[in-house]
Structure formats: structure tokens, C-alpha cells
């Protein structure tokens, strides 16, 4: 008995029952399509979040004033007034892994330019390194210099939204903008970033030297936070440890006294942010897998009916010399062909569905090659698994009884 003959026999049997074959495969088709589409959408959401986190900057550690711990909020992020400019300088000078630090002052402010006005929640005081750290290019004009920072210069770099709100179609460069009545000159416009995942407009932003923010806007002498950049990803964790111990030393904190600052590195932020999408992805995948399982049971059901219905055929085959193994193989191949063909169609349908949802609903989707390969192998395995019982039943029929079967 040759294998190609068994394949031929199985394919013939499937062709003879086209409608039934199609209906049987439908379960698998939709199961696989659901898995592919759902996992694709889950992956899309995940990769979008990762892109957002990457937009924080490259290899960044964030240091906030105050202690924000899962146990309870002691103080709003950055509101405690415990971080100083000297802390930032110490971090920059004493930790060799750190390549740049931007002390950060955050506030909201009313902006006025000519007749137009706008309230922004994102008035940031930063150092000249901020634009490099966040990898945020200045599209028009330039960022401010270290000299601007030293002199508490009245210069501002604005986001696209502000440019549009205050200046419309005019070129904002060189124009005067009043921030809480203090006049600043617009020297640069940032490249557009669009909304973040929370739907907040990232282009609604004004960046000025942190010294100017302290002296001219808020009057504060402490920092809300600082953005610390290290040279490479593998430096993130060791540098974080060094930052913590340096600040503890400077703030004279000895355990059990709690830190008066909070340090987060990018990896941790990423982990927290992707955790929820991982849960979503797992849920979607699980739901879709159930439908695949149901599809498999459908195959078993039809194969059992088929074995009963074809008892006589099986009897004839055994009578003219088929071994049990030949019959087993024939039905297994039928089941596996049904499920893997269904799987292939399902993959195409799933990709189509994911693309359609991306297009109409603006949900990002990402079809990975592994999910396609796994879905295909899994659907073939479903066929073999659920086809085995009916196939075995067929292969063990007694030819005399099978031939008498009506």
C-alpha cells in the first residue's frame, strides 16, 4: 500500500461530498480566522503602546519628587518639592553611565499672542538636552541653548497645536508669546507627534528653559521631576540603582526611612503599560481558541457520521485487501485535509478581517508570521486529534459485518 494512493482516495472522498466538506471546514475556518484576527489586533495594540513608550525617549530613567508607591499615594507625582537642581547636577556629574539630565518643571499656563489665547496643561521647563533625550526633532527654527538655560532666557519652543491656536497659518518663529504675562520669543516649533494612547494631544506643549520656568513663571526653587538618559539599554538598571543611592545619600535617607523621590525606568513603564494589553491579548486568544476547539469537535462529529455512513465502503475496502492501517490513514488524511484547508482559508479570512478592522475602526493590527504558522499547524493538529477516534473506529470494523451493514 502506498501513501500517495491513500491521499488519492481521501481527496476523492472529500470531492464526492463537496458541500459537506465545506460545511465541516467552516467551523475551523471561522475558528482560525477568529484567532488570527484577534491575536493580530492584540499584537497591534501592544506594538502601539510600545511605540508610545519608545517616544518617551531612548534609554530614559524618570525621577519624580515625592514617594509614589503602590501602597498609597503620598503626594502627587513630582509635587513634593524634594528634588533640586543640585540633585540633577550631581546625577549628571557623579554617575558616569548618565549622558544627559534634564531637570523638569511642569505646570499649566495661559498663553497669549496678539488676539489669540490658549490654556495649556503642558508648560515644561527643561534643559537644552530635552529634545535629544526625547528624540523629538524641532521642525522649524531651533531648540534653546545652554546659554539660554544659564541666563534664564525668555525663549520658547512650541508644539504644533499651540502654533496653530496662537498663530494660525502665520510663521510663529520670532513672534512674541506671553506666558502668564511674561513675554517669550518663539524660537522653534516641534515636529508633530499626534495623540497618545490616552487620546491626549502631545502637540499641546510649550518647552522653555527650566531656569526661566522657575524664575519667571512658577517662582519655585525645586523640581517636579527629571529626565535622565543613559548610554545604552543595559545601563538602565545599574544606573537606576546608582541614582537611587546617590539621592538617598544627598537627602540623608537611611532605611527604614522612606525615599522622598520615585525612580522609574523605561523598561518598568513599558512592563506596566503592556501588562494590560497582554491580558487582553490572552483573553482574545483564549476566546478564539474555544471557537477553534468547537470547529474541531464539528470535524469529529462529521467524521463519525461519515464512518457510520460509509461502513459498507470500509467493508468493501477491507474485503479487497485494505489493512486497518490503510483505513485509519484514509480517514485521518480526510480529517487533516479538511482542517488544514479550513485553516488556510481561515488564515486568509482572519488577515482580511484584521485589516478591515484596522481600516474601518482605526484599530491597529499586526499579523505576525508565527501566529499564522501556529494557527496552521494547530488546525492540522485539531483535524488529526479529532479525526483519530472516528478513523480508529473505521479501521477496526469487521469486514463481514461491515459488508452486511444497511
Amino acid at each position, binding site marked *: 500500500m502506498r501513501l500517495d*494512493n491513500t491521499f*488519492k482516495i481521501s481527496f476523492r472522498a472529500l470531492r464526492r461530498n463537496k458541500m459537506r466538506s465545506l460545511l465541516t471546514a467552516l467551523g475551523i475556518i471561522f475558528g482560525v480566522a477568529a484567532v488570527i484576527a484577534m491575536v493580530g489586533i492584540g499584537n497591534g495594540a501592544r506594538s502601539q503602546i510600545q511605540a508610545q513608550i519608545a517616544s518617551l525617549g531612548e534609554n530614559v530613567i524618570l525621577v519624580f519628587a515625592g514617594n509614589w508607591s503602590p501602597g498609597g499615594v503620598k503626594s502627587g507625582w513630582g509635587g513634593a518639592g524634594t528634588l533640586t537642581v543640585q540633585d540633577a547636577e550631581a546625577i549628571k556629574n557623579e554617575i558616569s553611565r548618565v549622558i544627559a539630565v534634564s531637570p523638569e518643571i511642569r505646570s499649566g499656563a495661559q498663553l497669549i499672542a496678539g488676539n489669540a489665547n490658549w490654556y495649556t496643561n503642558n508648560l515644561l521647563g527643561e534643559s537644552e538636552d530635552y529634545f535629544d533625550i526625547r528624540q523629538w526633532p524641532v521642525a522649524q527654527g531651533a531648540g534653546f541653548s545652554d546659554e539660554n538655560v544659564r541666563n534664564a532666557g525668555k525663549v520658547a519652543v512650541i508644539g504644533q497645536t499651540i502654533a496653530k491656536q496662537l498663530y494660525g497659518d502665520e510663521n510663529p518663529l520670532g513672534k512674541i508669546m506671553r506666558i502668564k504675562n511674561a513675554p517669550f520669543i518663539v524660537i522653534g516649533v516641534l515636529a508633530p507627534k499626534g495623540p497618545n494612547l490616552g487620546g491626549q494631544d502631545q502637540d499641546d506643549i510649550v518647552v522653555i528653559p527650566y531656569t526661566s520656568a522657575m524664575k519667571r513663571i512658577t517662582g519655585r526653587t525645586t523640581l517636579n521631576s527629571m529626565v535622565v538618559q543613559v548610554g545604552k539599554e543595559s545601563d538602565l538598571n545599574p544606573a537606576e540603582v546608582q541614582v537611587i543611592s546617590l539621592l538617598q545619600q544627598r537627602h540623608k535617607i537611611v532605611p527604614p526611612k522612606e525615599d522622598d523621590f520615585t525612580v522609574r525606568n523605561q523598561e518598568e513603564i513599558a512592563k506596566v503599560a503592556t501588562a494590560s494589553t497582554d491580558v487582553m491579548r490572552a483573553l482574545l486568544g483564549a476566546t478564539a481558541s474555544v471557537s477553534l476547539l468547537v470547529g474541531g469537535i464539528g470535524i469529529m462529529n462529521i467524521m463519525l457520521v461519515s464512518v457510520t455512513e460509509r461502513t459498507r465502503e470500509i467493508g468493501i475496502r477491507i*474485503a479487497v485487501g485494505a489493512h486497518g492501517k490503510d483505513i485509519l490513514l484514509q480517514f485521518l488524511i480526510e480529517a487533516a485535509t479538511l482542517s488544514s484547508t479550513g485553516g488556510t482559508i481561515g488564515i486568509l479570512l482572519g488577515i482580511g478581517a484584521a485589516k478591515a478592522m484596522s481600516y474601518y475602526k482605526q484599530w491597529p493590527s499586526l499579523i505576525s508570521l508565527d501566529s499564522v504558522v501556529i494557527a496552521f499547524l494547530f488546525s492540522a493538529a485539531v483535524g488529526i486529534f479529532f479525526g483519530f477516534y472516528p478513523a480508529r473506529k473505521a479501521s477496526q470494523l469487521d469486514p463481514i459485518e461491515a459488508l452486511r451493514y444497511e
Partner: protein
Amino acid sequence: MNAVVKLEEVHKIYHSGEVDVHAVRGVSLEIHRGEFVAFMGASGSGKSTMMNILGCLDRPTKGRYLLDGVDVSGLNRNQLADMRNQKLGFVFQSFNLLSRTSALENVELPLFYSHKHLTSREVKERGEHVLKIVGLSERADHHPSQLSGGQQQRVAIARALINNPEVLFADEATGNLDSKTSMEIMGVFQKLNEQGITIVMVTHELDIAMYTKRNIIMRDGRVLSDELVPKRLNAEEELNKLVLAEKAVQLAP
């Protein structure tokens, strides 16, 4: 002359529930190459069980069965399947063709399970050859539902012939056919037998048995009589007579 089939004290006991059914009680006989044998008997006489054993579909409980010199009583399921494939041909009462499958494909079926490695062209040639023997060349691509009973049985005979069997078994092969078609089928068998093919059939119809060469009558699992047919009928002649008789009836006022 070599015996193709040799039975030595063959018994078959079925265990159905509490009761043991002793279907065959010690049968010994020989069938030689070129013979044309009919097993006869009432239902329950054990002739069908005999047929299953002779056809290697079932194994004797006791005794020896030598098929073409090979003791098949101790073979396992797969070995029996190979014997059926290589040495035997089957024709059944209810034709047992695969539905929605062309006559040619039906005929080729045993070759699918053969150990001989034939190319698909050889398979097709052999299929067409045996269909020609039974006179159905023109209907090779017809499905069983498109064929008459007699034609279906011819396809079944062609299928039985495709592996050049040592013995052709026919189990009530004319049971589902009218008398005229039965004669035609017996004519096919007689022709095959003339070409040297050994045929063993089971029938309960006496007139059908008259076309064979040797009648074995069974009762209660034993051989009651085993004799040569004295005045053997020729299917072709009988058929001609029948056709003439039919014409005469039509001509009569």
C-alpha cells in the same frame, strides 16, 4: 493435480451471548484448479460461514485451511487482507460497489491496496482490460447508479478479476437479479471458468447451481453431498432458448 483449496476438519463456533453456535462441524474437502463449485443449502446450513472462511474474511475455530499451499488458519488480520488482495476475488449478492465512483475506479480498487508497484497507467490499462472481459468497456466512466443490476454485477466481477486471483468467490451473486440477467451473469462465469479460472459460489437456487460443474450440499454445518453436475446447463444456450420462448409468447395471438 494441486488443490487450490484444501480444508482439513474445519470447525467454526460463534460465541453469541450464552449460547455457542456451531456453524461448521468438521468439513474436509479439496477444490482443484479449474473447478466450478457451488455450495448449496438452506439458510443456517453453514454455507455462508464456509464462504467467509474460504474467502479469508473469517478464520476457522479448529482445523486447517490451505489456500494455494499456504496455511491461512493462523494468519493475522493484515496477512489475511493480503491473501484476499493477491489470491482471491469477491463477487457479492448486493454488488458492493462504491457509489458515486466510476466503474473503472471501482474496478481498480484492489490495486490501490496491492503490494505490486504499478504506475497509474498500468492500473488504468488493467482496469480497462478486465472491464473488456466482462463486456463493459463502453461504460467505464459510468457510476453504479447509472448501471443496471446486471451491469453492476459485471463491474463487481471485473473488480474481482483485476489481481488475477487463484479463486473467484461469488456469494449469492445472482440473488438480486432477475432470471434472465442471472443467466447472463452465469454465462460470464462459465466463460471465465473455460479460461481456467477456479470459481466457488454459494447459492440456494438449484437452477443456478446447474450451470456449475460440482455441487456441494450442506446441512447443519456438515457436507451432505458432494457430486459432479450430471447434465450441466450452458448459460448461452439457455439464454437463447429463453429469448425464443419470449418471442413465441409475443407472436401467439
